[in-house]
């Protein structure tokens, strides 16, 4: 650090040329400077936490969610009025509301004991998996970006384009069963990859920050798709005035795996494959090795002969493609009767949460996606059976992310040991020595 500064100081001494003319040139020649330290350090801090921290964050937010449920419950509020004369009433009311809420969350997302038979009882789990499928796909995309040091906030745009492309293939062509689905799938993934790759290209070529470009490309995608949806001959259903497509043809729809009783479609198995693929890509492939090297230390990657800009481009293509896959699942699996511009259902943004909770590790993202799928599925039954606003579920979800982003807070609550970087470094140093001594 000091050396850099050192050289800057003495460099200032020789002839000072007007830098204005060369500024543009420099910009073009050297678009990618290492990420601003503070930003990437923050992301690294969030991502480097252990699985324990993720679990603790979940536990903590469920506790706080419980407090909120109790506080918003009318029965609890009433009994609180005479708490000092009959405290038991209030405690019972609290217990009823919180336990009722979480048991209905469980019954709505995993297994409902009140329904007759196993097939009916397990339905909520299938529901959970259905909700989780696009979340996992998009989460994997965002996580891949994180691992290369990129913050892909463009999930919405990439999903919309993926959905639009897949949907267009699905309702406007007549192809045999299987092939139709395959082409629609590929089209959707390619469209998402293209849209993500565009942000990567802009970063690689001009140094434009991906956070800004992906956010703006979200708007571009949204209004462009909306325009196509409301233009006859584009995506709009013939003879309709609504900005909505016709229904998908049966030949392109992801088959329901367990029969018509369950919503769960084949996409869930595709997403298992995608998770395995991302795991292989990151941990076993040379491309993923370069992604990770660029993500951790772009300087060292560059010095080691890697083309950092090209990696930014590639990783955004992969990232966008995975998010595009989530869009495909939406139109070919979840909503097959035609879609409108709300088809992304906020999954593009939830994916960021899922990726963070999963610590950007493929199977971590898978688990986080399942959890969020369960929240989504269970949230409805919480609302239906207990009258708890769905917003409370969203509060719990948001709390999880908040706690993940503030590791010291969680450590303080659970009295976990504090990893002092200085001490840790010293320990490591000395341990290195000690290991040799004891050998």
């Amino acid at each position: 650090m000091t050396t850099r500064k050192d050289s800057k100081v003495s460099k200032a001494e020789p002839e000072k040329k007007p830098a204005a003319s060369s500024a543009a040139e420099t910009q073009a020649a050297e678009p990618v400077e290492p990420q601003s330290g503070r930003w990437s350090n923050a992301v690294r801090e969030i991502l480097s936490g252990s699985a324990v921290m993720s679990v603790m964050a979940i536990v903590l937010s469920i506790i706080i969610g419980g407090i909120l449920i109790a506080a918003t419950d009318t029965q609890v509020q009433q009994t609180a009025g005479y708490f000092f004369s009959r405290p038991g009433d209030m405690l019972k009311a609290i217990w009823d509301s919180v336990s009722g809420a979480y048991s209905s969350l469980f019954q709505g997302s995993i297994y409902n004991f009140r329904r007759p038979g196993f097939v009916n009882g397990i339905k909520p789990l299938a529901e959970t998996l259905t909700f989780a499928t696009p979340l996992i796909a998009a989460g994997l995309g965002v996580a891949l970006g994180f691992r290369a040091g990129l913050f892909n906030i463009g999930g919405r745009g990439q999903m919309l384009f993926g959905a639009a492309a897949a949907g267009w293939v699905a309702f406007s062509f007549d192809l045999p069963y299987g092939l139709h689905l395959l082409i629609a799938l590929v089209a959707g993934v390619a469209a998402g990859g293209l849209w993500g790759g565009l942000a990567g290209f802009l970063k690689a070529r001009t140094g434009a920050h991906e956070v800004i470009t992906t956010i703006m490309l979200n708007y571009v995608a949204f209004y462009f798709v909306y325009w196509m949806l409301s233009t006859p001959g584009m995506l709009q259903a013939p003879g309709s005035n609504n900005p909505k497509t016709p229904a998908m043809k049966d030949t392109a729809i992801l088959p329901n795996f367990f029969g018509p009783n369950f919503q769960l479609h084949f996409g869930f198995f595709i997403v298992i494959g995608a998770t395995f693929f991302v795991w292989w890509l990151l941990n076993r492939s040379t491309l993923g090795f370069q992604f990770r090297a660029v993500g951790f230390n772009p300087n060292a990657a560059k010095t080691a002969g890697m083309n950092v800009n090209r990696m930014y481009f590639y990783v955004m293509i992969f990232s966008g493609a995975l998010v595009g896959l989530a869009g495909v699942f939406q139109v070919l699996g979840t909503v097959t009767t035609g879609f409108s511009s709300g088809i992304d259902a906020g999954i593009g943004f939830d994916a960021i949460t899922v990726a963070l909770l999963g610590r950007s590790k493929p199977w971590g993202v898978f688990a986080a996606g399942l959890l969020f799928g369960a929240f989504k599925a269970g949230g409805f039954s919480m609302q239906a059976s207990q009258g708890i606003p769905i917003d409370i579920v969203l509060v719990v979800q948001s709390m999880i992310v908040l706690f993940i982003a503030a590791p010291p807070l969680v450590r303080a609550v659970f009295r976990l040991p504090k990893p002092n970087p200085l001490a840790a470094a010293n320990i490591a140093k000395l341990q290195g020595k000690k290991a040799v001594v004891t050998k």
Partner: protein
Amino acid sequence: MKLELRGITKRFGTLVANDHIDLVVEPGEIHCLLGENGAGKSTLMNVLYGIYKADEGEILLDDKVQNFAGPGDAMAAGIGMVHQHFMLIPVFTVAENVMLGHEPTHFGGSLDLAKARAKVREISDRFGFDVDPDAVVEDLPVGVQQRVEIIKALSRDAHVLVFDEPTAVLTPQETDELMLIMKQLKETGTSIVFITHKLREVREVADRITVVRLGKVVGEAKPTASNEELASMMVGRAVELTIEKGKAKLGDPALVVEKLSVIDPIGQLVVNNISFDVKAGEIVAIAGVQGNGQTELVEAIMGLQPRVRGGISLDGRQLVGRTVREILDAGVGFVPEDRNVDGLVSEFSIAENLMLDRANGAPFAKFGSIQLQTLSDFSTEKLSEFDIRAQGIGTLAGNLSGGNQQKVVLARELSRELHLLVAAQPTRGLDVGSVEFVHTRIVEARDAGVPVLVVSTELDEVVALADRIAVMYRGGIVGIVPGDTPRDVLGLMMAGEAPRGSGKAA
């Protein structure tokens, strides 16, 4: 003020970083704390400064037991610390930095900058520091920034000053000036604790020397002790300070640099029209004070500088305009000057770092897939060959000591078939044992017929390694002289004076 540490013990988990350390610093004494990296010197000083709490033992100032809860208490008790990495705010002026944390104020809380300025001037005049209170810190040379740190400590009436590896960032001249300042401070009765692992400085300035190894005091020494004695106390075995180096068997010029100029991103000419060559089987050292274009020269050779004029050819092949990948593939091994920034990915394991610059092809990759078995065999072999001290190949590079990190970089670069080795500051921040190891390896590469370009700001290193020395000053080469040129001549060249009677100057 007399400082005494009694039986200081500091544990991190099961690890004892300081093991019953006793240390007495008399008033007006320069007491050197000598030890390898990781010996526990910095931990001890952090205990003294209140950053860590000692598990056992006590700190006494003038025979009174102290209890420091934090650096604030230590400062109030009269202990000042000059950190290796300066704790200054670059965009503030000297006066603003000095008053930071105990700002004098007027009524109503407005800052009394005049008072701070006066304080800086007063201390500055007392020691002949020549520091302008209104200069902005980031515009000052590193040596002057350090003086600001000293002023900062003195302005809080520090009677015990701790210097934590203060010379690591200084030029030889600045180091000499610092030595003078330390002697002056001593004469005014200030006690000084001087932490270092550089033997020459210790012998020049110390009144007493305490040697620390693996968290324990291994003994006291007098400044009259020889370098070899001190080094062997530090490392715990005899150390060879000058490497055995036979006569170079010179081959044809391999690396030829012709009329090379480099323009940096702000549009300044940082390397100015230089020419030199490195023959096969020869070590050419680029000497010079930090920041005279050496960094950019090396980056230009490696293809890391975008705006380069002139020619760099290796075995007749032009390197200018090629990508880093192509240059590495041409057989250039590169040890970057800052291993943590450019040389290693600290979050990667040793094994991953060992394949960092050849992850693309054989033998580590097949059909885009990493060959884990090959990698693990290779890494295990290199771990023992290069004596990298770690639990295993899965240890993260960031958890290694500086010396072991550098060994990882060397192992990676020397394991390829090399046609040129470029080593920038190969031993910066390393302890004596590691320096010896790195130097031996570099000489071995030379003896194997590889042309070697070493860039170093340490004269000791330049003299130890070089067959020929090129001295850089303000982007140009002042002269190219034989490896046995006396140090004072080199010193003058580093200040920009061309050597007399040397016809080889570029």
